[in-house]
């Protein structure tokens, strides 16, 4: 399950929704990652653009992989502005095996940072500036150069 919100994420509400899908077959381990906008570079917040169809394609590969392992994957991301202390990203793996849940969360979050089609902007002095220095070229970049 992946969902893009036009506002900061409400962690309790979203995790309650995710947990509700586990009632029939409660898994043993639930590992979650929450991304909170932290103070850095004197920003007031961050802003995100998302290409949703390609984000869904990216997600579906991981979703199939977790399903094949008897597990469930959940993700939520904000688009637009998210201010300091607010939550922009949540993701969780529910699995009968804690090793699978922990390892999948680790590799998934790194792949997400490196390849998910989301662009991050600093909000500072009323401006929205692309955070190029903290962004990552997608694998295969430069093909047309």
């Amino acid at each position, binding site marked *: 399950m992946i969902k893009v919100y036009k506002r900061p994420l409400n962690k309790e509400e979203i995790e309650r929704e995710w947990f509700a899908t586990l009632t029939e077959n409660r898994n043993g381990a639930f590992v979650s990652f929450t991304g909170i906008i932290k103070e850095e570079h004197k920003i007031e917040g961050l802003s995100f*653009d998302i290409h949703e169809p*390609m984000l869904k394609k990216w997600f579906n590969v991981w979703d199939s992989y977790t399903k094949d392992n008897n597990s469930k994957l959940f993700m939520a991301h904000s688009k637009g502005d998210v201010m300091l202390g607010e939550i922009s990203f949540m993701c969780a793996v529910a699995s009968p095996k804690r090793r699978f849940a922990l390892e999948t969360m680790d590799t998934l979050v790194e792949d997400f940072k490196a390849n998910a*089609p989301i*662009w991050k902007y600093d909000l500072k002095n009323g401006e929205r500036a692309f955070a190029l220095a903290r962004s990552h*070229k997608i694998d295969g*970049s430069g093909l*047309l150069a």
Partner: protein
Amino acid sequence: MVQVEFLGPIGLKPIEADVANLKELSQLLKKKKEVKAWLENCAVAVNDEITKDIEKELKSGDKVTLLPPVCGG
């Protein structure tokens, strides 16, 4: 005609291009000053699938997307 989209911070409107493959598209885009600087940093998707094949054929109606460096989370 092929539709070319520029995502995120590139901030350009989509264009239409009369090209038969990605190599031809590359030649065309290198001539556009506002695009050229981005090419080194961008991944390329055809119909929302990332590709690494510069020889990839394009047919009319295909959508090519340029994806600059990302940072979700």
